[in-house]
């Protein structure tokens, strides 16, 4: 067992665990959006940032991917951590204004409004990539990908063309933390052909 401290509380972890896993094991709340135990962690949403301190030295790390080590001093509610969280939530509220899940989670952490204008009032997807990871790692198909790069990045079928690789298992819809996959789903499979029984 590895022992270290989170918020001055002594915790123990198995070798190979992350700081987030250890925190959850000890009921210490760290918000996450792009993390799911069924798939590998990617460290993309940065809501799970925690501060490591050692003497006067400190740095912020993503707890979902940071491996535990003996004697770590982890803090989950420092000013720097809250500053990252606050801005990520403010930006998410503007980026995904139609997602009640994000609004609920932001409110839980004290962020109820955003200084930013929304570019798309219907948007719910925050491109965390959980859908693509579950399709690749659990279903084994890679019918979903992130398309394009940088600020243009979005979720879609590979090469932005509907794909018959998709078996409509629904794993992506289930894992999606914002409910966005429900509306993206059809663009992955393509819209099914009109039901034959309705034809002439």
């Amino acid at each position, binding site marked *: 067992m590895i022992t270290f401290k989170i918020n001055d509380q002594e915790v123990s972890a198995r070798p190979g665990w992350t700081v987030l896993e250890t925190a959850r094991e000890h009921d210490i709340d760290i918000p996450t959006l792009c993390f799911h135990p069924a798939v590998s962690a990617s460290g993309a949403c*940065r809501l799970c940032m925690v501060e490591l301190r050692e003497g006067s030295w400190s740095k912020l790390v993503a707890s979902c991917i940071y491996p535990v080590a003996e004697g770590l001093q982890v803090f989950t509610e420092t000013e*720097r951590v809250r500053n990252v969280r606050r801005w990520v939530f403010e930006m998410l509220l503007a980026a995904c204004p139609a997602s009640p899940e994000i609004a609920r989670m932001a409110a839980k952490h004290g962020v109820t409004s955003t200084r930013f204008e929304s570019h798309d009032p219907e948007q719910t997807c925050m491109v965390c990539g959980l859908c693509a990871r579950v399709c690749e790692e659990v279903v084994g198909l890679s019918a979903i990908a*992130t398309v394009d*790069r940088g600020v243009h*990045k979005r979720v879609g079928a590979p090469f932005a063309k509907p794909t018959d690789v998709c078996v409509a298992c629904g794993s992506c819809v289930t894992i999606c933390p914002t409910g966005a996959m429900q509306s993206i789903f059809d663009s992955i499979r393509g819209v099914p052909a009109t039901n034959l029984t309705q034809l002439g």
Partner: protein
Amino acid sequence: MHNSAIAVKTEPVRLQSAEELNALRDRIIAERDPQRLEVVVCHGTGCLASGSAKVSQAFRDALETAGIQAKVMPGIKTTGCHGLCSRGPLVVIRPQGLFYQRVQPKDVAEIVQRTLIEGQAVDRLLYRNPDTGDLVFTQDDIPFYKLQERVVLRNVGKIDPTDISDTIEAGGYQALAKALTTMTPEQVVAEIEKSGLRGRGGAGFSTGRKWRSALSAIKKKGRPVYVVVNGDEGDPGAFMDCAVMEGDPHAVLEGLIIGAYALGAENGYLYVRAEYPLAIRHLEIAMAQARAYGLLGENILNSGFSFDARINRGAGAFVCGESTALFTSIEGKPGNPRPKYIRSVEEGLWGRPTVLNNVETWANVPPIIARGADWYNQIGVPHSTGTKVFSLVGKVNNVGLVEVPMGLPLSTLVEKIGGGVPNGKPFKAVQTGGPSGGCIPYHLKDTPVDYDSLVAAGSMMGSGGMIVMDDSDCVVDVARYFLHFLEEESCGKCLPCRLGLTRMREILDSFSKGVGSEQDIADLTSLAQAIQDGALCALGASAPNPVLTTIRYFKEEYLAHVQDHRCPAGVCKDLITYAIDPALCTGCMTCARQCPVQCISGKKKQPHVIDAEKCLRCGICKESCKFGAVLIS
């Protein structure tokens, strides 16, 4: 320069030992008359862009017709970058070392007649000292070159990069032979550690310590281990690595092979951005030649050590210069960075221990091994040893490539070597470290240019881009420019970078329109800190630096925008108006003819007037006015 097939100029002999390498070198030196007349034409990217290929062709044609080929042996040498790019195309006549600038094909006949045949200088093509007005004959007497110390660029501009015999003549591969025959891998690592060499790509991590950690990772995980060259230089205005790879590809290659020997690597990669076709071409030629001479590949110099490398071309993503994104790109996946909590020396390319160093870092390795760490330690300052190559660009007279000892004051670089700002005024600020770096204001002009002093000033060494700004540059606009660049280059994986850079740029956009408040400046600073703390890789984490340093040093200019709705530098279009000073205007009508929206009216020889309603604020009228009558307010 061979543009046809990859060619080896002298018949390659597979070298079997260090002695054979020395013998070959002696033979090359003996065969070449040091007093031979030689026309050296710069074929660096800068000079090529200003037409140097036409100049070297003109020399070839002229020499043929002049019938003096025998006097000019071995004909015309085309080399990598000479450094003083703003004066290109550059031509040097050896053995006198006459330095001709801005040479055009029409000048060639005169050079052939006056200089090559009659042995006289063509005065009008010589450099003139801007302070004294005196003619300067040779490169070394030009102030731009005088203060430089060339370690990395030792051969750049002197050798033909496509001819390995030039490299061997200049002492290339001597360090490799020394390492292979007289040093153990452990001794090589110890020598690099002792030299104090730090990574030249950005962060300035100790190269020796990196190699040492790789050795301990190999102890734990075994081999294979990989050595990789980061040649994905992408900062706007930076071309140091480009010049090294183009002008002396063997220097990079030799460094890499020595590193491979030190770490026991059998395979290496050179990751070079596809936008550097000439660098890739020269590296390919260099590798083919090195293989033919037994300096790369199986059983190098018959030492029993085998190593080979291949070139991977980047596909245009700036973020692939980040180490983990570079690895995923080589692995054939999208170039997204991955979290770095396990270091690349332990888990890098293909999950194996990997040593990734920048082009310039690798090129530093051969001289350190050849001449020893003690020699290297004497150059520069403690904790920042050696030299650094900078590309000096922006509002500076001598735009070009310079190499100086670490620790030189910034003002020496900009004012003495760079020749100062064109309008003769003091510079306003210098952006070091590219879009990830910061803006150093004039009052810190004595800051020594070394890793730690630059960080203390809020900037960083970065890879060595140095952009000089004067009072016609607006800091809000500069910060916007760099943010927009990184916004376009973000991989989009983590939220602070993908969403945050756009949001920061939007706030700056509103500032440039005169909209905002002191609270917005505070919000921008707070958001910038969140991105620094929260972004996944160095691209995002360092992206706020230009914003934070400009707010730190030029707060009053930000306030001028948001409180007084004024852009002091006269750059932000929404905050300026163009007007014509009737006292200065001669009514020449030039501006009226040039104006793209015909918003300037006035009769000939009468003062003209600009219709501010219609004016696009493009600035063409101001540029075209010979009398300085167009004013910005």
